[in-house]
């Protein structure tokens, strides 16, 4: 059994949180921007899908290569230029699920020593496999909170997890919306807070 089985379980549970967060939302609600200056729910989901692909591959690189250079990208620019509103929410959710299923299978098999392997991220600096997984585990709950905010602004009921799985959101990092669609800074705070405050 992996030394980080629980963390891998949490990683696998992420897509369900997202599914619950968007459940019952119509296409119109998914594309609405009820909180001025912030992403639509669809943009959040597509950002998470892009990010899943990118981070899964980065974790693979750290496992299989010698201290690879991991090149960041401007996520708000991706959101503006990659036609997020042309995507299909069901496809995006399935992609996130399937990406994590594949990656979890790999993570469960890595030797204990692999968790300290490192890559160099162009924005975050030196990062271990374990820290990357910490960031990934915190990423979906981080954004789910903002989807809940949009649900409220749209007059929708809180999603089930808000009521039933509050504990899962309890460890969310203390990062505050900054009144802009750019969330890179929030992500950095997420990773730092999550890594230092909640997982170590």
């Amino acid at each position: 059994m992996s030394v980080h089985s629980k963390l891998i379980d949490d990683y696998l549970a992420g897509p369900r949180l997202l599914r619950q967060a968007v459940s019952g939302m119509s296409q119109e609600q998914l594309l609405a921007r009820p909180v001025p200056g912030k992403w639509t729910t669809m943009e959040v989901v597509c950002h998470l899908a892009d990010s899943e692909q990118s981070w899964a591959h980065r974790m693979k690189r750290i496992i299989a290569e010698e201290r690879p250079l991991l090149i960041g990208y401007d996520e708000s620019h991706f959101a503006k230029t990659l036609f997020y509103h042309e995507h299909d929410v069901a496809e995006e959710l399935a992609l996130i699920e399937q990406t994590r299923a594949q990656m979890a299978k790999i993570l469960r098999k890595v030797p204990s020593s692999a968790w300290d392997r490192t890559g160099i991220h162009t924005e975050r600096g030196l990062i271990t496999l374990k820290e990357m997984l910490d960031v990934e585990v915190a990423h979906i709950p981080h954004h789910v909170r903002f989807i809940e905010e949009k649900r409220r602004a749209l007059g929708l009921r809180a999603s089930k997890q808000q009521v039933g799985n509050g504990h899962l959101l309890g460890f969310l990092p203390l990062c505050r919306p900054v009144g802009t669609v750019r969330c890179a800074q929030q992500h950095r705070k997420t990773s730092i807070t999550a890594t230092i405050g909640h997982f170590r």
Partner: protein
Amino acid sequence: MSETSKLIDDYLAGPTILRKAVAGMTREHLRAKPVPGKWSTLEVVCHLVDMDIVYADRLKRVAAEDKPEIWNADEERYASALRYDQRDIDEELALLDLTRKHVARILAALPIEAFRRTATHHGPKGTETRTLEKYLTLIIGHIPHHTKFIQEKRKALGLAEAK
């Protein structure tokens, strides 16, 4: 049909080509290495899926960023370190389908001139400027390139040629 929509259709057709190539193979067949010194069929499939995720990232970067720099990954240890032999073929094929559908939606929304956007590609043969169209063409060729070798393995295993 425009040139780009033909490319997008070909890109979307890739997973079906791969599914046909492995049709009817048991887990034992998939993990066998009937051609000495070459990958098993499962390793080929995992290679294609892992690379497709890298390619998805490249296509998005070329579409979104201003002349990004793109480097080839060092794949030498991927098959062993990333446990290709332990993967599940159905999960791999499903991931391939979803990856291509996700990227195809972006490609279909791009204006035609976006296919002339470029990146600086650093590969084993040196550095070159590549257009989005060139990347897409190369990516489309990746699955058929490897299904030829899967056919070779089928033959060596005494299996009927895939349709």
